[in-house]
């Protein structure tokens, strides 16, 4: 029986995993250690500002285990979506940590860097050629969107990681990658079924999340065979059962029936999830429908404003009853006081916890039942100074507003902090979420080999 084993130490590089679980995984003699280091979950700021999701120390700790074990046992290590958003700055950050570990541990290896940041001129040409289309509920791309973006990444598939393996890389640091790619690259290279490889990758990319008790902070092992795969957490305290694996197949996806990537669409409509042992699940039936046209996902973020916030509590029941009217008064006062400033240049947002702070317009419950409210007053404006100024004005207006029936004339707000106003800096937006059609594989994701 043919079998390839893939070890996923953790669902997000830098989240940490038990050393014992990792050792158990290594004892199973994996053919590759792969890890996902990225996500768009934390919002557009990470890509836009070029910062990471996790700390350097945490990343270093996880990577030290992986690189030492990889070097000692001659197992390739693949890191996808390096640094979180997988742009050039994130790749450099990850590489510098890897070099530091290599120096300290005195280990040496051949490292492939796969670049995922995209040149704006390339995209403009592609747009003009009609090769870019929206992905999901977003408008058509414009040249201005491309120019406005602080950074743009393309999301690679297995093809480029396989190429890096063929170039003899021991360690692959890949920029932005499709989540299952790092786990599926070696199996597909070795001739295993690509549909099963990608589906297994989808389960492994979150670490031990598809187990019970589930967590991203523990190791999961995948065993891929000719016509099925098995997943099993390496920590004996956890187990995978058919429902946890089936549930994870749905996770963070629009449709449960398809796993979509650069390779095509994995159809899981006729997939089965069976108990294999008490702690392991057997999955079969996932099929890749290869696409003839190669569409690559693009992600871009642009700076749209600066933000200042003020957090305040309200406990007075007379005021709570009129909270909407109080908000209206503040809005009117702001627009009349700053009538010299165009209303396109700023926005005042009230997050009212205890009313609809969590769900906003999606909140079906309209009545306030709480005896206290948390107000998060948010001002976004074209520069920080303006955001600070308007936030201060809105806060003092609300603090002293004489609403109907007011008896507490000393002030309307309880501030947990002094100073009450907190400038939080730049605000970004995902302004590119599109697909680019490529004509050949060399257009994107150049690979660079470095001896470490």
């Amino acid at each position, binding site marked *: 029986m043919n079998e390839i084993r893939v070890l996923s130490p953790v669902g997000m590089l830098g989240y940490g995993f038990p050393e014992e679980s990792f050792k158990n995984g290594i004892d199973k003699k994996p053919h590759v250690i792969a890890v996902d280091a990225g996500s768009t979950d934390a*919002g*557009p700021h990470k890509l836009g500002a070029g910062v990471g999701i996790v700390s350097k120390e945490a990343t270093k700790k996880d990577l030290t285990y992986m690189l030492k074990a990889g070097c000692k046992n001659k197992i390739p290590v693949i890191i996808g979506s390096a640094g979180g958003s997988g742009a050039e700055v994130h790749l450099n950050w990850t590489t510098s940590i890897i070099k530091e570990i290599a120096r300290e541990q005195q280990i040496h290896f051949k490292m492939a860097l796969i670049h995922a940041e995209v040149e704006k001129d390339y995209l403009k040409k592609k747009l003009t050629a009609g090769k870019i289309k929206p992905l999901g509920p977003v408008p058509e791309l414009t040249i201005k969107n491309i120019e406005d973006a602080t950074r743009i990444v393309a999301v690679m598939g297995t093809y480029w990681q396989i190429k890096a393996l063929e170039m003899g890389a021991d360690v692959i640091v890949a920029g932005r990658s499709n989540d299952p790619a790092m786990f599926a690259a070696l199996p597909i290279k070795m001739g295993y079924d690509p549909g099963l490889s990608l589906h297994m990758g989808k389960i492994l990319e979150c670490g031990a999340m598809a187990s019970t008790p589930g967590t991203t902070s523990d190791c999961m092992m995948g065993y891929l065979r000719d016509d099925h795969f098995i997943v099993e957490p390496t920590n004996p305290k956890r187990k995978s059962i058919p429902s946890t694996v089936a549930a994870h197949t749905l996770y963070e996806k*629009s449709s449960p029936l398809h796993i979509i990537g650069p390779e095509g669409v994995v159809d899981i409509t006729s*997939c089965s999830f069976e108990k294999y042992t008490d702690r392991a699940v057997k999955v079969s039936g996932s099929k890749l429908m290869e696409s003839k046209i190669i569409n690559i996902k693009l992600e871009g973020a642009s700076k749209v404003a600066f933000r200042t916030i003020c957090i305040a509590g309200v406990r007075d029941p007379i005021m709570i009853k009129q909270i909407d009217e109080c908000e209206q008064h503040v809005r009117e006062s702001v627009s009349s006081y700053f009538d010299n400033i165009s209303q396109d240049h700023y926005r005042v947002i009230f*997050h009212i916890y205890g009313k609809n702070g969590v769900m906003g317009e999606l909140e079906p419950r309209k009545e306030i039942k709480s005896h206290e409210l948390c107000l998060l007053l948010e001002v976004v404006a074209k520069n920080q100074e303006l955001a600070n100024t308007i936030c201060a004005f809105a806060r003092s207006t609300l603090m002293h507003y004489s609403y109907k029936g007011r008896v507490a004339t000393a002030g309307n707000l309880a501030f947990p902090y002094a100073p009450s106003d907190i400038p939080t800096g730049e605000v970004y*937006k995902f302004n590119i*979420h599109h697909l680019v059609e490529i004509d050949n594989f060399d257009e994107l994701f150049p690979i660079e080999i470095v001896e470490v």
Partner: protein
Amino acid sequence: MNKEVPITDLVKVLRSKNAGPFELTFDIIFKDKETYEKVKKSKVITKEFIAKLYQIPIIKVLYFVEFDPANAIKATIVRPVDSGSIGETDVYGAQQHAPLLDIKIPIEE
């Protein structure tokens, strides 16, 4: 005789999460095949129901799927604002499921 059963008695998982920065997806995974089939038969949870509960036009419910292999119902809607943009209330989209917890399913006894 039908009995109104709170959905919390029937599910193993009921959650919301971003599916990319522009969509929000709900997973309702039932305890077992039998429960799942009863809920499907009740026809309470539909595309129209999701639109009404979240007060959005039905066109904004992008997917509504009953997924037998997982004993699950899944719905995906357009996010009110794209993740992390101005006006955001829940960057990860992980707390938008709560109204679904109020569902009651009439089940034959």
